[in-house]
């Protein structure tokens, strides 16, 4: 099971935290989410992904108990 946390505008489409099974990679997770919420595709494509508090690329494999954070474009400052 993978723990997922989304931030900012992504919370318009997904719960702030949820979990998923049977996702093999970040790319896999991303396309699952796009299928669930097609309108989120644009914001997802602009977002960065972190696994266990490190930025990762879409190719990054996901393992059981991984914690994924999906980070829309920053708007701090």
């Amino acid at each position, binding site marked *: 099971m993978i723990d997922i*946390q989304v*931030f*900012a*505008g992504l919370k*318009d489409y997904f719960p702030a935290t949820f979990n998923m099974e049977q996702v093999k990679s970040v790319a896999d997770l991303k396309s699952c989410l796009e299928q669930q919420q097609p*309108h989120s595709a*644009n*914001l997802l494509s602009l977002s*960065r992904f*972190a696994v266990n*508090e*490190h*930025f990762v690329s879409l190719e990054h494999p996901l393992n059981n108990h991984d914690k994924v*954070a999906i*980070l*829309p*474009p*920053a*708007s*701090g*400052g």
Partner: protein
Amino acid sequence: MTKSPYFPQPAVASNVAITTEAIDITTLFANAQHATAGGIVLFSGTVRNHHAGMAVAYLEYEAFEPLALKQMQLIVNEACSKWSLSHAHCTHRIGKLAIGDSAIVVITAHAHRSQAYEANQYIMDRVKAEVPIWKNEFFTDGSSAWGNNTPPINSK
């Protein structure tokens, strides 16, 4: 770079912070006022009362704190070595902020002022672009919008 013993340098870990409290500019400035600094630049980004023509009532910032702190520290460290700063600091406030509150303070100190200005802008530019912190603007008409989002979907 040598430091006067009378102005001990803060530990590296204190160079960045995320807080829900008001940013204490007086203390942060005093920390930067090392004996070797010739110029200190302090930038404060404050909550504006308008955005894209709409009146802002208040803001809320949220952060993915562990990664935000890591990335802020990385940016500050890179600025320190790029310009040999005698001091650099970045604090971002999160939670609910009122008009006029400081959301972010960046301080840079260098023997020469042009480097202090340049490094300060560098840190600000990178923090805004790279650090996972987001603002949610609440307008006086009751609507709200996440910063940097696709606007049409976002205005609820």
